[in-house]
């Protein structure tokens, strides 16, 4: 019994020891709780918020691009897609069947739906059908009650109401590329985000983009959105107003498309605004926004017409005879000829062993500068170029904007080339040949320019100021009450060429269009108040072709298209107060020999006539042009 009592005492003592241990352990728990919940509470509170709060970006609507009168050239079209949340859809097969009765749903679609469902959480919407039209969307919407878990998602997709007519100037948008990902803008990381890829869309991408809004949402551990905690709307993209007059652009594209591969530029030389920038053929810019099929892509890059090249700024052509007014200007300014200088044209000029032909067999006889421009005598300009020399021609060409980027506000511009002695020595190592100066004197040989440069060149001849081109119109949309330019912009400095020189050249160009033997006589504008002055040109593509034709072996349409000459024309109007200028290049448009006058000049005629008819100075209200097009779009 005593031992048993002893046993009890030991147990009591030890129980107290164990109890003490337990108190210590509980104290440890309390201490740990204090550490976590008081000392480290801020850190864990932050971690808890990081867990549950997600920031979602709200994509701002991309800014519109409109023409000078507000006609939309790039808009955002609502697009509808049917989505299904599997966990709400009940019997998937039944629901899909019901949807298929309302909108076409192929077997492939169904398989994709099933696959998507398996790959994701059941609360993640699965796309049933993309890009539905209004009818399909309505059919689903009306029957929503019978379609559990099916809903309509509305998004925005870039839309170009004029499609291929504005594809080069306006450009297009596409998915973000690897290089573009390297940006501070968080928007670029969104999978559906589109950025400008060419044209105005690219140049003014940041302005058009706007800035992202944010939505702070609470999510659970599986990423499902529970609620929105805060929302900050983004800033919608800016509207970009272009100087383009869509009516003129439409006309230019129609005329150029009819020629196969051609480009035309119309400028308002008083403001530098590009009224039309046509490069035919165009392409469907909308297809780039939604994604091109491999077949579409192949067709675009295989086409001999190079629809993806903006020929107005990136097509480089020998200017041909359109270069002659420049050579004349350089010669007059250098004093090597006077307005009264005459040369004799026998139809050819011998230089050493080489023979340089005039386009006119038999020659022009004794010919003055005025007539030489009007009738585009080659021999006159062989002599003139020989006298003035290539370097002075090149300097003058650069002054008039040839062979240099014009600085127009879209990417992809080519500089073209105006050769000099130094350039040739540096690139080929061979000294400049005198004969090359003769060729350059009629705009052949190394000389190459873009249609936009030609337009700037003619604008500078017409105004005597250093006109620069611009697509975006800083003055905004033109309203009936908007102020209009009364004279050339003060921003354009004088070019520093004697007005008398320019007058002589302008007179020659007037004659080329309006006098009986002028090379573009048939394309003249008969209304004297709108008369234009211009210069035709033919750019040799294939030297052999020319020689063969000269021998009369092959003529006209028998020459393969690729080997025909380019037809060029530059012009300004009205001659009384030059304001509108136009440059047209028709690729391989030459079949007759009088290419510039026969093929390119009529296009310029139409464009300049229309430009003057729509001259805002006349307060002619613009035709309700965009409305009809938009209704179709």
């Amino acid at each position, binding site marked *: 019994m005593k*031992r*048993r009592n*002893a*046993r*009890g005492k*030991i*147990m*009591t003592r*030890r*129980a107290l*020891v*164990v*109890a003490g241990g*337990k108190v210590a*352990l*509980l104290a*440890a*728990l*309390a201490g*740990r*709780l*204090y550490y*976590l*919940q*008081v000392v*480290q*509470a801020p*850190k*864990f*509170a932050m*971690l*808890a*918020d990081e*867990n*549950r709060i997600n920031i979602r970006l709200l994509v701002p609507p991309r800014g519109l691009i409109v023409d000078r009168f507000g006609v939309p050239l790039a808009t955002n079209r609502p697009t509808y897609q049917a989505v299904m949340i599997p966990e709400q859809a009940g019997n998937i097969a039944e629901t899909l069947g019901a949807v298929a009765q309302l909108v076409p749903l192929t077997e492939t679609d169904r398989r994709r739906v099933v696959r998507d469902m398996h790959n994701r959480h059941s609360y993640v919407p699965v796309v049933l059908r993309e890009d539905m039209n209004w009818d399909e969307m309505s059919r689903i919407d009306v029957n929503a009650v019978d379609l559990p878990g099916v809903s309509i998602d509305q998004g925005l997709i870039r839309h170009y109401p004029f499609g291929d007519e504005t594809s080069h100037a306006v450009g297009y948008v596409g998915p973000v590329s690897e290089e573009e990902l390297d940006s501070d803008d968080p928007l670029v990381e969104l999978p559906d985000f589109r950025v400008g890829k060419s044209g105005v869309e690219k140049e003014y991408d940041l302005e058009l983009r706007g800035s992202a809004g944010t939505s702070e949402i*609470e*999510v*659970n*551990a*599986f990423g499902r959105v*529970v609620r929105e905690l805060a929302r900050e709307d983004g800033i919608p993209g800016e509207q970009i107003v272009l100087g383009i007059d869509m009516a003129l652009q439409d006309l230019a594209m129609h005329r150029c498309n009819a020629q196969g591969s051609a480009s035309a530029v119309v400028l308002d030389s008083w403001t530098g605004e590009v009224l039309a920038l046509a490069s035919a053929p165009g392409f469907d810019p909308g297809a780039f926004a939604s994604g091109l099929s491999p077949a579409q892509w192949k067709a675009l890059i295989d086409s001999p017409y190079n629809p993806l090249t903006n020929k107005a700024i990136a097509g480089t052509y020998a200017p041909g005879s359109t270069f002659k007014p420049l050579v004349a200007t350089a010669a007059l300014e250098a004093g090597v000829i006077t307005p009264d200088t005459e040369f004799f044209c026998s139809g050819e000029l011998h230089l050493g062993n080489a023979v340089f032909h005039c386009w006119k067999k038999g020659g022009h006889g004794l010919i003055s500068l005025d007539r030489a421009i009007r009738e585009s005598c080659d021999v006159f300009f062989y002599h003139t170029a020989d006298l003035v020399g290539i370097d002075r021609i090149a300097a003058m060409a650069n002054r008039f904007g040839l062979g240099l980027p014009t600085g127009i506000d879209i990417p992809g511009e080519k500089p073209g080339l105006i050769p000099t002695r130094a350039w040739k020595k540096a690139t080929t190592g061979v000294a400049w040949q005198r004969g090359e100066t003769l060729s350059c004197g009629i705009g052949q040989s190394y000389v190459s320019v873009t249609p936009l440069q030609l337009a700037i060149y003619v604008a500078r001849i017409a105004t005597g100021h250093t006109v620069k081109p611009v697509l975006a119109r800083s003055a905004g949309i033109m309203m009936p009450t908007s102020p209009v330019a009364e004279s050339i912009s003060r921003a354009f400095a004088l070019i520093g060429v004697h007005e008398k020189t320019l007058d002589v050249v302008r007179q020659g160009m007037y004659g080329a269009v309006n006098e009986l033997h002028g090379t573009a006589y048939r394309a003249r504008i008969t209304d004297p108040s709108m008369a234009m002055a211009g210069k035709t040109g033919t750019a040799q593509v294939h030297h052999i072709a020319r020689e063969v034709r000269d021998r009369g072996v092959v003529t006209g349409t028998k020459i393969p298209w690729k080997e025909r000459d380019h037809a060029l024309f530059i012009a300004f109007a009205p001659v009384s107060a030059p304001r509108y200028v136009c440059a047209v290049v028709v690729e391989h448009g030459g079949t007759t020999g009088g290419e510039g006058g026969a093929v390119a000049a009529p296009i310029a005629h139409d464009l300049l006539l229309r430009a003057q008819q729509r001259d805002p100075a006349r307060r002619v209200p613009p035709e309700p042009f965009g409305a009809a097009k938009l209704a179709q779009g």
Partner: protein
Amino acid sequence: MRWLYDPARPQQTVTVKLLSVNWPLVALITTIAAVGFAMLYSAGNGSWHPWASRQTVRYAVAMLIMLAVAVVDIRLWMRVAYGFYAATMVLLIAVEVRGAIGMGAQRWIDLGVIQIQPSELMKIALVMVLARYFTNLPPEDIGDPLKLIVPAGLILVPAAMVLRQPDLGTATMLVLCGAAMFFLAGVRVWMFGVIIAAAGAIVPFAWHHLRDYQKNRILTFLNPERDPLGAGYHALQAKIAVGSGGIFGKGYLSGTQAHLSFLPERQTDFIFTIMAEEFGLVGGLLLLALYAVVFVYGYAIAFRSRSHFGRLLAFGITTNLFLYVFINVAMVIGLLPVVGVPLPLVSYGGTSMLTVMFGFGLLISVYVHRDVRFGRGDAEG
């Protein structure tokens, strides 16, 4: 019927026994259980379904069982101790065998009405059998190491089987609880020294035999940031929940970690995090205080019992309960590896509720029968 109504002691009717039940303790237990219901309601995102409602029903049933156990004569419990232990062993083996013949690792036995986890029952059975063994052991034999081989086996065999399941938490509890019983029974302190030294020698060997996920849990416990999305996820998210609760918590039903499903197993092993997140340090300490009061009751009951068996049983059950609470809370707040021990009365789960309430039944039985004198037949039988 002598175990329920002893004609020799007519004053001990069932009614009298029920009246002598320690009702304040029952009220305390119910309070803790009620905290559990509230937490499960919160864990169900403010809904009785699916956990809180079923837990309430379970608690009601378990309460009846507890009272039934409490009024059964303590001597009967002593007499059936070996049988109960043996039966539990059979169930454990059955689970083991069934797992071995291809149904995968399973801790459950389905008895139709209820699923039973034999390893949970073993915690009570072990306390009972050790209490009985040491009661019967003549005091002078307690110093004899040979006499300790049998009780050591009683602990280690089930512990080893549970470890194989593998259930590190329950195995640890069995060993610690058994060790506490040894200590209370008066086993010499130097023997513990020997055992601890031996255990230390075994550790590298045991480490070798742990499953990968168990090793991972321990490694991740030592450094939770080691694998924040994998093994450390539970531990880290639980710590975030507790820590972000701050002093006063985020408010009932407003715990973001719990309601947005960042907390794994929030209705079972990690239920304490809901308390700590929604009621903060104050709520967590309050719940711990409630448990502490229960432990004090357990000790009081042990000290008031006149029988050696009663005391050992009461101490053993209280210690067992303490281990539940400590291991669970410690693992939830990152003091111990995540080993899978539920919080008694609060965690959702049938077997643990049943086991814990059965333990409380025994504890109250000790209280009700505190003055019962053990005859020779009772003591040695």
